[in-house]
């Protein structure tokens, strides 16, 4: 039931022969997550699910506190910003492990990664430093300053994430420029952690007639006048992670709240989704595995027609199908993640070179005022933004295609395994106390958020099947290459 790292990730194990330090990080992420799952997720997941069913405002504070003690919230934040310095690609194995225990709690812990990725994709290093420091300082104090990402509107969900659909999306939100800042109006819906986040990364156009050209990210603290949390949804599953409506009622934010970047639609959104869809794919693998583990445990201990379930050939075939589904889903997300490390946002934010550099430089130096002010300087921001602009469009396509393909494949597989598990358990699978019906409810959301699986299929078509001819063949950035560090260093004052 607890396969070794090499059994689970043969590709990475092979990779580790060339980059043993990266392999060590993968193994450390798995070790931490496995212990966290055993000690905090498994014993509490069903009770939390039930508590939120009774009261959707219930928040699993004890899990948040435990995750903070483990440093899970800040683990992928660069060391220079006070975080654990683990690359997103490395941390992804932790997403699978925690998600196999409970997708809702995995989302509660992991969804701020979407916000961090969004801020990173703007290239606004100062904003990145600000939200990261708030998150990690709070984490060390036991109260992480959680982030949410507000994208979906009542009349526009998936279409906000696609530049072609965005042109005709029925948007109602707008951040109207006024003297000294912006006035935000409208409401965002289904925002994960929206009711508990301390800061919201709000995606809004400054002119909703021209959303492609004018959509930016705004940092909105939850105590901003004119901001309020509306209804908290009664969701079918993933209940541990609250989904809330965020209401902006003529909510004024200063000019500084707008992250410095070009408009988000296009390159920047693609970079974000190319990274985060791999994470959702990891949760697809996670739920596939959770279903498999529970079905196997049940089949070994229950009988039908006078024999243990596991001794029936039809059950053996189903268990084999579930096991190979887990392998397939895992292969999908690992591939997508490595693609992102080579070609996507991770190659800039937490590429191997950056990690190695942070390891060499003592933490006290990274935390020093000089380094802090250097990181938030205009020059650093412009250097990072130049790096984003220099990313090859074909490379971004590759990361996006892998992310979208993995998201569709792994989440469909996750649902498939839940169907099979319920069939193996029969009537017992319907009971809440068995945990399998919860997996089924939880899994369905994976096919919807981060772009529906329908949109993601079209994304695969656009990025992999029907590539624009002017886009060059991608040239992988070698992991740990010095080139990236040199670019970054050149960007410093």
């Amino acid at each position, binding site marked *: 039931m607890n396969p070794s790292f090499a059994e689970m990730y043969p590709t990475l194990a092979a990779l580790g022969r060339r980059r043993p330090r990266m392999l060590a990080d993968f193994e450390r992420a798995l070790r931490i997550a496995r212990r966290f799952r055993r000690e905090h997720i498994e014993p509490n997941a069903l009770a939390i699910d039930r508590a939120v069913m009774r009261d959707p405002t219930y928040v699993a504070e004890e899990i948040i506190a435990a995750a903070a003690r483990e440093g899970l919230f800040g683990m992928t934040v660069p060391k220079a910003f006070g975080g654990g310095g683990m690359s997103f690609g490395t941390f992804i194995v932790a997403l699978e492990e925690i998600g196999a225990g409970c997708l809702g709690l995995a989302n509660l812990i992991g969804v701020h990664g979407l916000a961090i990725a969004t801020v990173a994709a703007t290239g606004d290093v100062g904003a990145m430093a600000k939200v990261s420091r708030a998150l990690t300082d709070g984490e060390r104090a036991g109260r992480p300053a959680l982030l949410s990402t507000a994208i979906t509107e009542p009349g526009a969900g998936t279409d906000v994430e696609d530049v072609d659909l965005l042109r005709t999306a029925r948007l109602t939100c707008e951040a109207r420029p006024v003297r000294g800042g912006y006035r935000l109006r409208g409401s965002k819906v289904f925002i994960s952690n929206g009711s508990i986040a301390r800061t919201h990364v709000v995606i809004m156009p400054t002119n909703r007639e021209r959303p492609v050209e004018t959509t930016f990210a705004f940092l909105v603290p939850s105590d901003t006048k004119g901001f309020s949390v509306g209804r908290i949804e009664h969701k079918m599953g993933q209940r541990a992670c609250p989904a809330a409506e965020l209401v902006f009622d003529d909510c004024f934010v200063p000019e500084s709240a707008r992250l410095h970047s070009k408009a988000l639609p296009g390159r920047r959104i693609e970079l974000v989704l190319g990274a985060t869809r791999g994470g959702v794919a990891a949760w697809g693998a996670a739920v596939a595995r959770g279903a498999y583990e529970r079905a196997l445990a049940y089949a070994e201990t229950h009988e039908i027609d*006078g024999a243990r379930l596991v001794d029936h050939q039809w059950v053996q075939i189903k268990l084999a199908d579930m096991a190979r589904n887990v392998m397939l889903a895992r292969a999908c997300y690992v591939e997508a993640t490595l693609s992102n490390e080579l070609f996507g946002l991770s190659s800039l934010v937490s590429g191997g070179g950056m990690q190695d550099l942070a390891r060499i430089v003592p933490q006290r130096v990274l935390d020093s005022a000089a380094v802090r002010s250097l990181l938030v300087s205009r020059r650093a921001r412009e250097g990072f933004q130049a790096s984003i602009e220099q990313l090859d469009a074909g490379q971004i396509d590759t990361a996006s295609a892998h992310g979208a393909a993995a998201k569709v494949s792994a989440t469909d597989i996750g649902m498939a395994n839940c169907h099979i598990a319920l069939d*193996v358990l029969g009537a017992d699978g*319907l009971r809440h106390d068995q945990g399998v019906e919860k997996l089924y409810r939880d899994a369905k959301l994976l096919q919807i958020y981060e772009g529906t699986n329908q949109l993601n299929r079209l994304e695969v078509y656009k990025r992999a099947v029907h590539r624009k001819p002017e886009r060059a063949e991608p040239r992988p950035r070698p992991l740990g290459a010095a080139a990236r560090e040199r670019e970054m260093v050149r960007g410093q004052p």
Partner: protein
Amino acid sequence: MIENTELDLIRRNVARFGDDVVRPSLDALNHYPDVALPERLFGTLTEMGLFDLSADGSGALSVALATLSAAAAAPAASVLAHVMGRELLTVAGRESLLGVIDGHAFRPTLAYPIYAETSGPSPTRVRRVGNEIAIDGTARLVVNAPVARALVLPALEADGTPAVLAIETSAAGVRIGDPLLTLGMRGCPTADVAFDGVRVPADRLIAGPSGGAALVDDVARRLRGPVAAICAGILGSSLHAAVAYAKERHQGGRAIVEHQEVRSILARMIEDHVLCRDAAERLSRGVLPEPEALALLVRCKERAAHATCDGVQLLGGYGYMEDYGQERRMRDAKQAQCLLGRTEWLRQRLTSAFVDGGARP
């Protein structure tokens, strides 16, 4: 055979009941057992005579359950469990027990584990002690148990012979567990039942002349049509909600119903709904060869479960939220897939019926 006009009348009456009573109670149903059961709903169900319908080949029960399930499947499951219990007594020639149990024939709400495989190993054990029987063990997921006055249960005699029991829930030593939270059909009161040295008169063993297993199988056959009808009702409701949303929601400058991918998904849902509806009608009205009946039942249950997932998908985030009903239909359809036994177990029976003429279990 009931005339079509009578079936239409049943359909209209139940549909009105669905609109007037069931839909306003959906929130309570969805949050049971954390909130109380909507008394009026179950009271009206009784007054309307739905608990009195029989799986008699007329199609009336199926029409009623399909229509009821379009509003909410939980009360339909409650009716199904009651009818299963009553049919067991009737087929065994023991209708008189209904009067003994409650004092009014056809009024008590009976409980029955409708998700159990009909010939699975029963954890409820009976042994004869003089003119009485002693009952020990448990019965899992007994539908209606928290509200029923009597339990009808498959059981095993000491020598391993399958039997069927009918006993009052008030009998000494019968412990009805807390109402269970289940994937779907929430609002259909369900609980585990424990028996601790229960002693009741021996006439509460109701196995017919062919034995308990044959009795349960016989009655389960009659209820395949109503089970398919529940699936058809849930899926039909999901389909209509998906179509309404697809016409309303715009993406890319047009209603999503104009997108080919959405039309393909809707087409598959329509195909599956037609399959379920036809299965319900054929299983309810005709005496089909066993392999054909099992094939229809298995396919119908499976397709409804999958198609209602697409019903959620078409509504995107809204489909996942309670307010829009699609998530409930998805859960209900998956739960319905377990009615009368899990899919693969039924498939093994199907092949046995086709290849071996049912010689092997």
